[in-house]
Structure formats: C-alpha cells, structure tokens
C-alpha cells in the first residue's frame, strides 16, 4: 500500500518535471523561431534608427549603439518621397473606391441570390485571380499606348482594381454568406426590393467585411510594383513602390535613410493587414479556408 503511494508520488513528480522541461523547451523554441522570423524586420529598424557610422562597419553591432531621428527629415528633403507617397495614395484610393462599389454588387449576386450562372461567375472570378500579372502586361501596355492612357494615375487604378476585384468579391461573399436568409426573406415580405435589402440589411450587417475589402484593395494598389513601373514611367506620377526601388543603398542614399524609406512605406500596410488577416485569407483561398 505504502509502496504504491510512493510510486504514484514519484510518477506525479516525474510528470511535473517532464511538463516543466516540456514547457521550457516550448518557450525556447518559440523564442528562437520568432527571432529568426523577425530578424530581417529587426535589422531594418536597427539600420534606420542609428547613425550609419555604426552600421557601416563589419561586423556590425547587433544591438543599437545610439538612437538617431534626423534621417526622416533628411529623407523627405533629399528625395521626392512625399510626392511618391501622394501618388501611391491617389492610386490606392481610386482602386479602393472602384473595388468597393463593384464588389458589393458581385458579392450580393454570388452570395445572396440563386441564379443559373452563379457557379460559372464564381469560377470566372477564380481563374482571373490566378493568372500571373505579367502575362497580361504586354497586350495591356500596347492597348494603353494606343489609347494614350500611359502616365495617368486613374488609368493605373483601373488595372489595379481589375486584378484585386475578384479577391474582394470572394472576401465579401464570405461575409454576406453570414447574413441569415430569413432576414432577407422577411424584408422582401415587408415590401423591400432586393437592392433595398442589400442596402438596408446586408450592408449594415457586413461593416467589417467592407472594411476588409477597402484594406485589401487599397494596399494591393499601394504595394503594386510591376504595372506601376511600366505604366507610369514619367517621374511626376511615380508611386512610392517604384520610387523606393530606384534608391541605391550606400552608394547614393545613406543606409539609415534607405531603411527609413522602407519603414515609412511599410507601416500602414503592416498595421492594416495584421488587423484584417482573417478576411484576406478567406479571400485569397476563395473561401476554401476561413482563417
């Protein structure tokens, strides 16, 4: 009897020790993995916020030696980065408005209405979303050249919206799917038209989904590099994604300014993408996975 109790006691304590080691191992693994993952981001911060005399040294110090904040003012006075950001902002806002208007219509048709072409419409959107952008670049470039639409911010927004619209529709479809059909039914019984139901019932219930679409469309255009570089070749219209890629570290732009430029450009997308990740995942996988 006593032996049995003693045995079970050592068993429990062994169990506890095992759990402790397990727990510690888990934390160490998580810490190491997280460090490797965020190191490049950390290195961007380090290189931004200390004077380059520390960083232009091999091996560079892994911890910041001195904080420095003038690089932002220098960056904005030495490069037309304010104009680049303004151009990016304009392209992004136009893309966002266009996508929001069209994706509400498309998602309502795809989610809340039943009609013979519905599956085909969904497939059509799926395929257009999966083609590499560069495949369409040459014919679109030739078309834009003929129509004299190169070097125009609204013309670029038209293209950006065409690429991101299918994903926006899939995101909103997932959100609209959550509106109980009984509610829509009741509103029609009460004499509401279908579009009235969309406006008065579906949209107010889907505010987070609309915000997600706005974020996705805005930052797709904000981040887009390939089309912006080809369609807006004139310096006046150059957006930040293209402008930043023309900066040359060390040779032409001091490292702390170079990295500060990357930081300034990344802050907004990082904040909003992290807030909206759930919706973006469901849109990118065409609703196959709800994140």
């Amino acid at each position: 009897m006593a032996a049995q109790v003693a045995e079970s006691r050592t068993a429990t304590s062994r169990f506890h020790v095992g759990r402790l080691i397990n727990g510690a191992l888990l934390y160490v693994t998580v810490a190491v993995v997280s460090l490797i993952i965020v190191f490049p981001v950390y290195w961007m911060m380090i290189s931004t916020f200390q004077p380059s005399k520390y960083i232009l040294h091999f091996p560079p110090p892994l911890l910041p030696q001195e904080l420095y904040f003038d690089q932002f003012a220098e960056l904005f006075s030495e490069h037309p980065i304010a104009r680049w950001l303004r151009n990016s902002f304009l392209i992004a806002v136009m893309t966002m408005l266009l996508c929001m208007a069209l994706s509400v219509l498309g998602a309502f048709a795809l989610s809340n209405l039943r009609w013979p072409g519905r599956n085909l419409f969904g497939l059509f959107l799926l395929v257009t979303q999966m083609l590499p952008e560069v495949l369409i670049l040459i014919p679109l470039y030739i078309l834009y050249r003929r129509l004299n639409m190169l070097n125009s911010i609204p013309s670029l927004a038209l293209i950006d919206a065409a690429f991101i619209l299918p994903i926006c529709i899939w995101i909103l479809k997932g959100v609209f799917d959550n509106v109980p059909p009984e509610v829509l039914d009741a509103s029609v019984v009460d004499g509401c038209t279908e579009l009235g139901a969309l406006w008065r019932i579906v949209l107010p219930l889907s505010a987070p989904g609309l915000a997600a679409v706005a974020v996705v469309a805005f930052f797709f255009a904000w981040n887009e590099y390939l089309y912006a570089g080809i369609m807006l070749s004139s310096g006046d219209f150059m957006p930040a994604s293209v402008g930043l890629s023309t900066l040359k570290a060390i040779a032409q732009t001091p490292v702390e300014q170079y990295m500060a430029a990357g930081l300034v450009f990344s802050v907004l997308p990082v904040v909003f993408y992290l807030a909206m990740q759930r919706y973006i995942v469901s849109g990118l996988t065409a609703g196959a996975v709800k994140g």
Partner: protein
Amino acid sequence: MNERVDADAMAGRSSGKRSPPRILRRRYLLPFALALPIVLYEGLLIVYPIVQGIYGSFTRIELASSAATTWVGWDNYERMFSDPAFWKVIRVTLLFTALVIVVALTVGLLTALLFNRPFRFRPIARGMLMMPWAIPEVPVVMIFIWILSPQFGVVNILARMLPGVTQNPQWLQVPELAMGWMVIISSWKAFPFYSLVILAALQAIPQELYEAARVDGASRLQLFRHVTFPGISSTLELLVVLAAIFSFKQFTIIFLMTGGGPSGTTETIVIRIFNTAFRFYDYSYATALGVAGFVVSLAVALVFILMQVRRTQESA
C-alpha cells in the same frame, strides 16, 4: 398585403419551415444585371488582353516604327521550342517553384504546429509570425539587399562562422547562392500565409479525437500520424496548389534583386517575359512566352478548381 407574397401563395409555394427563403427562389434578371458590369470590366482588362496576346503571338509587332503588325503564323512558337534559352527558363521556373513550395510549406507547417500549442504571449508571437507577409515586396527587397551586402551585410557574420569562409561571399553573383536566396526570401515572405491557413485547420480538429487517442495510449508521433495529419491533409493539398500558383507568379523579388541573373540562373518565365518585352523590345516573342505561361497557370488553376469542387461536394 404584398402582391408577391400572394403570387407565391397562389402558386402553391407556401413557405414550409425548411424551404429556401423567398428571395432565393424567384427568378429574375437582377443577378445578371449585377454580374454584368463585373464581367465586362474583367473581360475588358483581363480576358481581352489575353485574347490579344494569343493573337499577337502569331504576329510580328513593331511598336517603335509605325510598321503594321504582320501575320507570321507559328514562327514565334517554332523559335521558342527550338531555343535552348527557353528550356533553361522552364528548368529554372520548375526548380524555383518546387523549392518555394517545399520550403514555404514545411516552415508554414512547423510554425503552425508550434504556434498551435497554448503558451503565454501567443497573440504577440502570432503577430510577429505574420510580419513578413504584411510587409510589401519592395521594402522586403530593400531589407535583403542590405542584409546581403557583400561589404556590410549582417548575414556575413553567420557565413564567416563556417569553416573555410574568410571573405564575405558575393551572395547574388554566385548562381547557387542567388537561387538559394531567391527561394529563402520568397518563402520568408509567403510562409506566414500558409501557416495561418494550417493553424485554422488545426484548430478545427475536435479535441475529443486527441483525448480518445490518448486514452488508447497513442504516442505523440502516433497522435500526429493518426489524428493531426488526417485533419489537415486536405488543407495541405489545397495549399500545395495555391503555393504553386503564388510562386509561379513571383516577380518583384527576383526582378529587383537579380533581374534573372547571374547569367539567367534565376530567370523564371515571368522575368523572361518582362525582359524580352521591355529590355529587348521583342514584343511578339514575349507574347508567345506569355501564352506558354498562361497555359501552365491555367492548368494549375484548373487543378485548384477541381479540388474546390470536390471539397464542396464532400461537405454537402
């Protein structure tokens, strides 16, 4: 009383509790009217250029001079298939795509398994995990250009620890290293997305399955093989296809870091198309390459769609 309701009632379509709601049952033109502007819009900016591209691949396009485009038949394709550089591009594309699928999905799976376990600060750790995915590609390129700088790049500290390395390597000038970095950077950017999707699948596995298996005395490895893996295998299949699509599309990172070099060893088909059109101004040949890329991505997209259809049929 609403006329529509009366019409429904007269047609005997009385609303039983389980019948679909009235709004879903009537036939009307509204959905077509809603979808039409979108189909036209996508048709004009995506489908029409593809058709134009297919047509263009059978012609000779002169943009600089005002010479008219002339029909050349299969010339561009004959040139493409007999061009050793084209087959090299295909090999590079396959290698890059396959490596990114393997690396990004492996890292995505391992991090998902790790971050699925409960621990303190998990929300913060998960936020950090998602960082690479949220940072735009151009700043990612800037960060890695700086990290890989042969003069001051921080990665050289690690390289110098390896035996026999006395000088900082020219990271993007050596073919194997350049390809390795393109794969690492593209995977670093892509894996958080896969990780997030796998995490969602892991959390959908019922806890009772684990408890039942533990009661039956299953080891950790057995738990993974018989409970976890079956629970996420269909998601993993889907992600392999999605990863193929995404890495096949990868342009900005490779274009800005190596431009396809050194001597074409990182030149995937999307980079090749761009270089042919906008560096060598050979638009007709570039459209032929574009059609080849289109056929490949359409095939992969079809696989994804078939998997989607199968999934919806299973869940129905």
